[in-house]
């Protein structure tokens, strides 16, 4: 499989990268891990005229905790997240489920976020944990927006021309918290048939103070189950409560029948996995 021809620029700084991007115009693309972009080029689904390689930009490589947030730089690999003690809750749970070991060694969390593939795992985790993304513009500007504002639709983000993501920030809960990522896949390296990210924070009385639920592969974009989240908040966890939240989540999903299974069954899996995910998040929170 041979891609059509393209130019390649290796950027040494964020400024260089954004400049190259804006010069390259609409057909210029960032090259991060290349694990989504290169296959698309080889299948001739994507024909970028210019690739801006950001892998040499040192400042993008850091994975750290600062100001109560987990900061994941734009060239941090899935494997780095999987191996890190800094990751927690749903982030730590999801990392080993992304793709396969080879892809995890190259692919980046931020690249996955930018790619906005509704079958990508990370955006569900970020929706459930309330993450924000850091954006750099060609004029040297920097801004930060919630993940909800980045995801526009399938394979579409809200970045403007000449803009790139530099990092993702995930808030680190201060109190008792837990999270899970349950993924039904057909084999290792498969995209999710159904993926469910859950996140719970408990107050001192053991009530749910914050809740996040988001879904992979069962809607045109990763889907935040806001209604289900809101029935959880302020309540004491119980089997019934989780069952209700799970039902609401299943109702919110928009699965489609395909080679992986029927829509009806997928909706059922969403329900089952949401309940199980909440149970796991709760037991993690209670032991944290």
């Amino acid at each position: 499989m041979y891609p059509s021809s393209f130019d390649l620029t290796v950027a040494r700084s964020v400024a260089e990268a954004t400049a190259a991007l804006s010069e390259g115009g609409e057909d210029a693309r960032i090259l991060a891990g290349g694990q989504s972009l290169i296959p698309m080029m080889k299948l001739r689904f994507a024909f970028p005229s210019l690739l801006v390689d950001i892998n040499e930009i040192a400042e993008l490589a850091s994975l750290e905790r600062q100001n109560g947030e987990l900061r994941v730089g734009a060239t941090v690999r899935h494997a780095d997240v999987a191996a890190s003690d800094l990751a927690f809750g749903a982030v730590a749970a999801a990392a080993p489920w992304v793709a396969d070991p080879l892809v995890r060694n190259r692919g980046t969390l931020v690249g996955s976020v930018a790619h906005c593939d509704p079958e990508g795992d990370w955006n569900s985790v970020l929706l459930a944990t309330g993450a924000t993304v850091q954006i750099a513009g060609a004029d040297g500007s920097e801004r930060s927006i919630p993940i909800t504002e980045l995801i526009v639709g399938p394979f579409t983000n809200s970045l403007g021309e000449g803009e790139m993501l530099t990092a993702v920030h995930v808030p680190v809960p201060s109190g008792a918290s837990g999270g899970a990522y349950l993924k039904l896949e057909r084999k290792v390296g498969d995209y999710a048939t159904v993926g469910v990210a859950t996140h719970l924070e408990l107050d001192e009385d053991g009530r749910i103070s914050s809740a996040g639920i988001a879904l992979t592969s069962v809607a045109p974009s990763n889907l935040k189950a806001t209604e289900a989240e809101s029935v959880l908040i302020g309540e004491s966890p119980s089997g019934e409560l989780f069952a209700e939240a799970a039902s609401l989540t299943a109702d919110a999903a928009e699965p489609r029948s395909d080679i992986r299974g029927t829509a009806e069954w997928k909706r059922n899996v969403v329900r089952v996995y949401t309940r199980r995910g909440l149970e796991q998040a709760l037991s993690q929170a209670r032991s944290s």
Partner: protein
Amino acid sequence: MTAAQTLSTPPEIGGIGHSVPRQEDARLIEGQGNFLDDISLPGMLHMAIHRSPVAHARIRGVNTEAAAAVPGVVAVVTGELMAQHNLAWMPTLSGDTQAVLATDKVRYQGQEVACVIASDPYTAADAAALVEVDYDVLDPVTSPQQSLADGAPLIRDEKEGQTDNLVYTWESGDSDATDAAFDSAARVVSLETHYPRSHPAPLETCGIVADINSVTGQATLYMTSQAPHAHRTLFALVAGLPEQNIRIISPDIGGGFGNKVPIYPGYVVATAASLLLGTPVKWIESRTDNLISTGFGRDYHMRGELALSEDGRILALRADVLSDQGAFYSDAQPSKLRAGLFHVVTGSYDFPSAHVTCRGAFTNKAPGGVAYRCSFRITEASYLIERLVQNAAYEIGEDPADFRLRNFIKPEQFPYTTPTGFVYDSGDYHTAMRKAMDEVDYTALRAEQAEARAEGRLIGIGVAHFTEAVGAGPSRTFDIAGLKMFDSAELRVHPTGKAILKLGVKTQGQGHETTFAQIVANELGIPVTDIKVVHGDTDHTPYGLGTYGSRSTPTGGAATAMVSRKLADKSRKIAAHLLEAAEADLDFSAGVFSVRGTPDRSVTIQDVAFAAYTNMPEGVEHGLEGSYYYDPPNLTFPYGSYIVVVEVDAETGVWKVDRMVALDDCGVRINPMIVEGQIQGGLTEGFAKSSMQWITFDEDGNCIGSNFMDYLVPTAWETPRFELLETCVPSPHHPIGAKGVGESATVGSPAAFVNAVIDALAHLGVRNIDMPVLPDRVWAALQSAGGGVG
């Protein structure tokens, strides 16, 4: 070494029964293999194929201008150009014709329409994308049922006399006797199931480097071929090239599994292009090319029925098949057997009558019907009978293992003639199955299952006992495109006692370079490491039909043993001369001839070899070499007992294998390690097909399964651990008692996995879930049986 086998050579010689490390591995592991895409010749051009995006359409026109204008493009080949050379169509292996490049219509998505020859593969791919084809899209036929229904679009309108989409009808067995048995039956069980279309998906895709010398006419074709000699003859017959000028070299092959038996359009166009351009032309398929256009396996819609007596004996079997053949009928199958060996469908059971009918239907799908790691449709047969037998046991409320043990062919009945005319060579099914049952502690397992059910957990125990039929010939029954199936070996022992063995069969990873050397080592006592095995080059090997259908050991292995014995006979003469003894007074063991009674008077096979060139007895021809063409008297019939334990998640339908015990009896094992490797691989493929792997099509005829994200090949991660067992009942007619084994596990295991899932749900009345047994299908079955949770 197996319990039943004794070693006749020490490890230094490494004859039969030794797990000799594979001689070919060092080269392959250290990157010193030579695969097709490693071959690069001076001036070589590259070919890319433009394929149809639609499943069924009339071609109004092909515009190659833009493609031809790309710098670096040397030629654009269309069907029209091929037609000028009478090569727009070619024969298939089953007597049909297949378009090389489409001229009138395209008949499946991915069909070859035009080829671009260019300076490099990137340019060729760029230009191939620029070929413009004007299609008048027609209604596609996407199932064999639709194909044979009234008013279906006629797919093969170019075929004279073809007025519908029926490819063939075929039957076997005795319909009257079978009807009578069904009339008198106490009970009848039936099963309708689809064995889905699958693809051999060798990791190395197909390819060719065609190099035709414009002066000498010598055609050297480097091809990914499982059957180089047969391909040479077919090239000679089809393209009219003189056969002595055709040399097919099949280099290291990265898996074949039946996919590299047919001749594909790409081979033909690349060869024609090399002839016309006078330069070597290389064509290597992409993964998608391979999956959407080359030989698929299976795709049988089957209905089976068993007639049962009051006391739980099988009286008769009926089977009816509707085969989805795709757009061209190109099964890689003996010409007398339209449904291959499907009529081995009576399996491991003793009953008097059976009747099998089969219809083939054209559809707008890729052609194929290759024996994907199986002996000509026997996989479908084995699957059907093993699923049916399981259901029969449920029907009469008996344990499926007990039901089998009662109905098995008994050891004393071998050789056993089946109702469809096969003569099984040897076996002891009862011992095999009991050994597998003991290994899993079957009785305890059933108790565990009952306890789990009481707690609402779904555990299933699946049993399958397959009998395979492998090793074609005999040549009186078996042929490929008219070429009779036997095989050959040529053995030459050099003066220093080192040997070179040349084979008509061709490895694709099975380990021939080791196994076949071990046969020689066993017969002559020459160490394995002193024997070079040559195969795959038609200029340098004797004629043979190639490797597929588990036939290498039954045919080529037998030929190797026989030629070795020929040389042993001659060696005995030479040894007698050297020892000044009578031939009859010599013992021969592990490469040493000694005079009976005075063992210190001896010579080695190496001494004999040297003498063959330096010190021959009067009147004996010099040299120590020979050849043997072996036509087997019968197939060999390996078998096995497989038991799978699964647990099903009642909430989601997801199932997991807890245990898999596989007992195989393939007669004498030449290299136990290699045999186990074959079984492990076959079990993995069986697991894949039962759980995740299929090629399907949407209503427009678009192929779903065109890459490895959609067509799933399991990795070590999800593949269960397999526990292997064995028994050894040698084949009575094979020179070393061996039976083929390369495909047993692919054939036998799918039914075991599926039966296990069905068994978990059987108490709810579930009797069938089609493969692949995807979790949504399991969940749906649970829902309709009322056994789902939530």
